[in-house]
């Protein structure tokens, strides 16, 4: 059992204050073997936090990150090949999750939007089974027509988008946005991946909704063709 | 020793012993002498045991009750008889060897007016004396058995406390207080010493009981009968130190005697002594009167 954390789009401090305390507690060191970060780490503190979670941290470059990190990363864990890319390079953006349709993490949706379709194309081109990409507002899993999975862990901080209204009302204490903080935890076992999506409740920061999904790599003969 | 003398033929040929009535039940004084009241009958038995081998020829056996005052000043021994009452219990006779003869005796209504006293310079004694007169050239055989006489006196009518303020100007100033001036022999001296001014470093403080004998107008030196530390360390101004001295712990104490047969007097003093760090002594002496209470006799 190998645990892989997919997380990213922190945007601290560019778009929001900090990572929720509840998530900091969940991301305790010593449990998770690999971290795949989709980028926009922005601050050293968050990077240090990720490196405390695990020794093996891969970070792809987001649009606000410096040039230190690569655009794309390929990692093999057990019998699964993971690709990692932030996704802002993958055009078009239109039809991103949350734009054209409100994706929920409740089910693995078939690829539907132009952006996700492009991500799948990238996944095929990179020759990976699972592509972890950012730019989503909440965790979303999308399976390809012919197998393969795109995992979008969403924003770990629930960083608001520029179109979310500023909480200017004095009475409005919370930082409510259309986005919900979340990440995806993957339990890799051979060619079998169990995915858990973590989404923080908007009203109760202590509450985290977890959902479980399963992904199985199509079959070995198909993978031979992929290579 | 006796055996050696016997071989030489000069040892006492008989053993004379005095046994007082109810001797084992009687109270004894510090020298283990049985105590009698002044008018009490002194009775008992004298036994004469002639040693085996030789009969004892004597010229009469006499039992006396005697009392006298011995003066011990220097080499000069003086003796004054107070009392001598005799009984002749056997005329001249020969007692066969090995025989024991007993002679009961009783001195009724003889007056023993003064207490027994053992001092440095003077001693007042009572005794039952047995004399076996022997033909010349032998000395008479004398055996004495000491008695103690003690009498209780009524408590004094006035028993004022002693309170005094003394001192050396600008050096030491104290006030002391004793509960009484008269104490019976089992009494407790209770007192207090207040320090009003202390400019010397006092190390400790003691109470001494001192005694002075006066025999025929000659004062003897003060004799310290008891020493009792009442304070350890240096007091400061305003300190008050308690004194509680149990006289019973000193069995050699006697009552104060103002005049015994016109021969001697005994006086007691309480002496408060402070000793400073350089061992200088500061003292104040005050006479106290001791008496023997009826309770002390019991």
């Amino acid at each position: 059992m190998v645990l892989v954390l997919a997380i990213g789009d922190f945007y601290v401090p560019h778009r929001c204050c900090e990572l929720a305390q509840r998530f900091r507690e969940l991301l305790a060191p010593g449990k998770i073997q690999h971290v795949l970060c989709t980028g926009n780490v922005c601050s050293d503190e968050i990077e240090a936090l990720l490196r405390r979670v695990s020794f093996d941290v891969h970070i792809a470059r987001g649009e606000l990150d410096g040039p230190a990190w690569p655009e794309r990363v390929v990692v093999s864990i057990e019998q699964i090949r993971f690709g990692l890319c932030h996704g802002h390079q993958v055009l078009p953006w239109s039809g991103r999750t949350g734009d054209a349709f409100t994706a929920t993490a409740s089910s693995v949706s078939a690829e539907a939007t132009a952006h996700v379709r492009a991500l799948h194309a990238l996944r095929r081109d990179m020759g990976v089974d699972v592509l972890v990409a950012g730019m989503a507002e909440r965790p979303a899993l999308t399976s390809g027509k012919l197998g393969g999975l795109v995992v979008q862990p969403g924003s770990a901080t629930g960083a608001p988008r520029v179109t979310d209204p500023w909480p200017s009302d004095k009475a409005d204490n919370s930082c409510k946005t259309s986005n919900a903080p979340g990440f995806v935890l993957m339990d890799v076992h051979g060619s079998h991946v169990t995915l858990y999506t973590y989404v923080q409740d908007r009203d109760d920061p202590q509450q985290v909704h977890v959902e479980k999904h399963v992904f199985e790599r199509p079959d070995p003969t198909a993978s031979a063709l992929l290579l | 020793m006796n055996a050696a003398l016997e071989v030489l033929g000069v040892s006492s040929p008989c053993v004379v012993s005095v046994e007082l009535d109810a001797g084992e039940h009687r109270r004894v004084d510090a020298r283990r002498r049985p105590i009698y009241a002044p008018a009490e009958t002194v009775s008992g038995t004298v036994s004469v045991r002639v040693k085996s081998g030789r009969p004892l020829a004597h010229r009469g056996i006499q039992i006396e009750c005697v009392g006298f005052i011995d003066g011990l000043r220097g080499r000069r021994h003086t003796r004054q008889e107070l009392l001598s009452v005799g009984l002749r219990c056997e005329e001249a006779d020969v007692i066969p060897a090995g025989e024991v003869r007993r002679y009961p005796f009783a001195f009724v209504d003889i007056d023993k007016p003064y207490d027994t006293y053992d001092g440095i310079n003077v001693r007042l004694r009572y005794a039952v004396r047995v004399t076996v007169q022997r033909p010349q050239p032998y000395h008479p055989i004398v055996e004495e058995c000491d008695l103690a006489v003690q009498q209780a006196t009524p408590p004094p009518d006035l028993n004022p406390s002693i309170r005094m303020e003394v001192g050396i100007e600008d050096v030491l100033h104290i006030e002391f207080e004793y509960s009484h001036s008269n104490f019976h022999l089992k009494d407790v001296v209770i007192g207090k010493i207040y320090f009003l001014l202390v400019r010397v470093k006092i190390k400790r403080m003691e109470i001494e009981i001192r005694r002075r004998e006066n025999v025929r107008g000659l004062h003897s030196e003060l004799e310290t009968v008891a020493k009792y530390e009442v304070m350890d360390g240096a007091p400061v101004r305003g300190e008050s130190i308690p004194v509680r001295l149990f006289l019973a712990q000193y069995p050699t104490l006697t009552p104060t005697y103002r005049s015994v047969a016109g021969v001697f007097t005994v006086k007691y003093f309480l002496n408060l002594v402070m000793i400073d760090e350089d061992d200088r002594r500061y003292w104040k002496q005050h006479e106290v009167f001791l008496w023997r209470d009826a309770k002390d006799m019991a």
Partner: protein
Amino acid sequence: MTRSNNRASGATGTAPPTSATAAAAAVFAAAKASTLDEARLLREALARVAHQSLRMQRQWKGGQYAEAVVAACDVAAELRVPVGVGSPSSTAEDTTAPARSGRLLSPRSYYDLYLAVLQALRVLETSLWSLLQSQPLSVLPFYEHAQHSPYVVARLYPLITVGSVYVRSRQAPAEDVLRDLLEMCAGVQHPERGLFLRAYLLQAMKDKLPDEGGEYAGSAQGSIAFLLRNFTEMNRLWVRMQRDCPAGERARREHERRQLQSLVGANVACLARLQALTVEMYRDTVLPQLTEQVLECQDVLAQECLMDCIVQAFPDALHVATLPHLLQTCAALRVGVDVRSVLTGLADRLGRFARADAAHHTLLREADALQTLLQWVPQVLDSQRAASALSDELQLYRALLGFLLVAFPEQRQHCDALLGLCAKAVSQRLPPPAPPPTSVDETEDVSPPAPTTTSELPPTRPDTPMSATRRRRPSGDGQAAAATPAPAADTDDPDVVPLLERILLLPLHHYTELEALASLAAYPTVMQLLPLENQRALAAEVLRRSLPPGSTGRGVAALPLLEALLGLVRPLLEQMPGEEVMYHRRTGVPYLAVDGELVRGYEAQQHLVAQIVYLLRTDDLRLFVRLRQALLSGGPARTRLTLPPLAFALLRLLRVYRARHGPAACDKLLEFVHQVLSDLADVDASTALRMHLQGAAAVDASELSDDRFLYEFMAHAYVLFEEEIADSRSQFSSLVLIVGTLGTLHRLDADNYESLASKAVKHASRLLTRADQCLALCACSTLFSDVGGGRWEASRALGCLERAARAARSSVAPAERALLLLDVLNRAMLILEELHERAPDTARDAAPNDVWDDFCRFTADTVDSVRDLLTRLEPDASGGKAAAARLARALAYLRDVRELHEGVFLRLHGGAA
């Protein structure tokens, strides 16, 4: 009264005689011999104690009880040994008494002896007790008998032992026995011996004191009187230890006294444990008598220790009831007494008391504890000012503040006053800071400096990516603080700075509301007393505590509060002397440096500063304007980090602003956004460009009627791209972002879109490398291939792809050529798929067949080109394998969704193999 000099009789019996050799040694080497003497003396005394103790036990077993008691006196007689410092007038020739050979048993050794004696006495006590259990005896004779010893120390120890049994047997009222013993103990006036004796008295009696609910009958008043009396006497003895002490001995003497401190304090502790002690009793009897003793003794050490002892021993509720008295006493203590630590202890205790229970708050309130403290503390301090260290004083303020914040958190004015006192205390103790140097130079450069581009800089060593430009720090209202060095940094006391920090952290911990903290006017004043580094750390802590805004409740909605907050964090906002800005050689990003060295960690602090904007819970633009002004004073190295969140927040404000103030007001907001972005562009063009794109997205989502601002944002982005982005990698990624954003904008009118899109294509084809050109053109193709979004211009999309393929083919390296063509191929396949999925009708029927055909043909041609390239490549050439794998995957997909790609297959020259 008579005085006589009788040395011979005076020294007898004080201690057993020692050998002449030891005495001689003491004469020659007093210091060394004294310790040897002491050890030997102790050893001998202990041996005698053991011996006499055995004798006592033997006699007791033999039924000789009176003799056993006498033996117990002999045991205790060992405690008559001289203790402490020998008499200064001791003479060498008198060698018989050990007291004459200088120093003898130290209190520590004496204590060992004392313990040994106590052990023997415990045997006596248990023996006597078990005897009483078996026979109906009276204790009185034993009590009297114990008093027969001629030595006062020797008889008092067994007397106490027998007395304790006497009380236990209940043959006499405890009160009477206690009173008697207490009185008799006055016989020992020697300080050390007296202290130990009375300590034993207390120890033997403390469980036998009549008390409420206690075992022994009698009034608790009597117990209190007993303890107070014993305390008084012990204290006097203890104070007396110091008397007549030669100057050289003083330190050692004090040390010894401190060792004995607990003996005296035990009385107070015992008093405090009495169940019957009521508030009234404490207030009316106990405390007045205790404090009277404390004040009367006029001894610095005793006052210090005893006050501390009183404060620590008694329950807090009693202190609350008697606060004025306690403080009054503190004020009357002698100069030199460490009254601060006493008060500190008191305040700490009250603080804990208040924290322990909510009911305690009312108690404190009723007692008016705070007023009393604040009224008295300055007086107490004034009475002691000359004598104590600054750190002690601060320690006191720390404790008081802790108490205040726990018990009376709402009394902010007092908190402020205390902080003011701290500031005063520090500034009074320190020399006045040097006046700020005034020079003409400083007034010259008023505006924040614009960054110089790296090209102007002289070349630096290749291994250092940074180059430095020294700049004059911006002069502003921060100048005064910058020019005066922090005075607390000057003090020698290493405790002052940490203490000040702790003092300043206290309100932070207790006031969750930012308003509360901001209302403390003295807070920044105290803060300025710290060295700069600490000021910054503290300011960062202020921010950390305030963020996220959820925890501070209402956030910042008014200008004064923002001003106060900015005042608090000013050390973080401003550039300080000695700091300079260095620019990254390649990216031109500014960093903070001191003496040519990069400052590590400042970014984390600036990230906190950047988050101030999240506290703003308002749509009042003035606050944002003020914040920008404050942020700008930090210089480029800081604004690089602090401006983006401000800009982003402003953009999010747009929708609210429009709804509340109408579209016209948005002009003002957007104008301000442009100002902020232009500030940002000066320091970090690439981020500024991204923020412009975000601006465009924000305007697109808002319900503004025309696309003027939208266009403006995009146009600015282009300007930045053209003028500021020099690096080719950066150019490429920026362009991709421009294209991506452009693709999502819905409210641009067709003309504007057209012009912006063609600009993108133009820039794409002018990028530095062929690879960038190719990939950028592929990206641009999406601008025209949005089938669902209605921007479907097949010819232009195809045109982009063809230009991309041309760029790819003109690449020099064959492997790269193949890889780039594969990118083009993938893009073409994606467009085909999109076309097919989203608009099958358009694709199959409505759209002209030639478009479909063109795409299919183009795709097939690309596949053929790649194949062709791959056959000509060396098999092991770098990139060749990767290209082959990618081609295989693309073909496999073509095969798998064959119905979609039928058109492509038809046109493939080599078939689908």
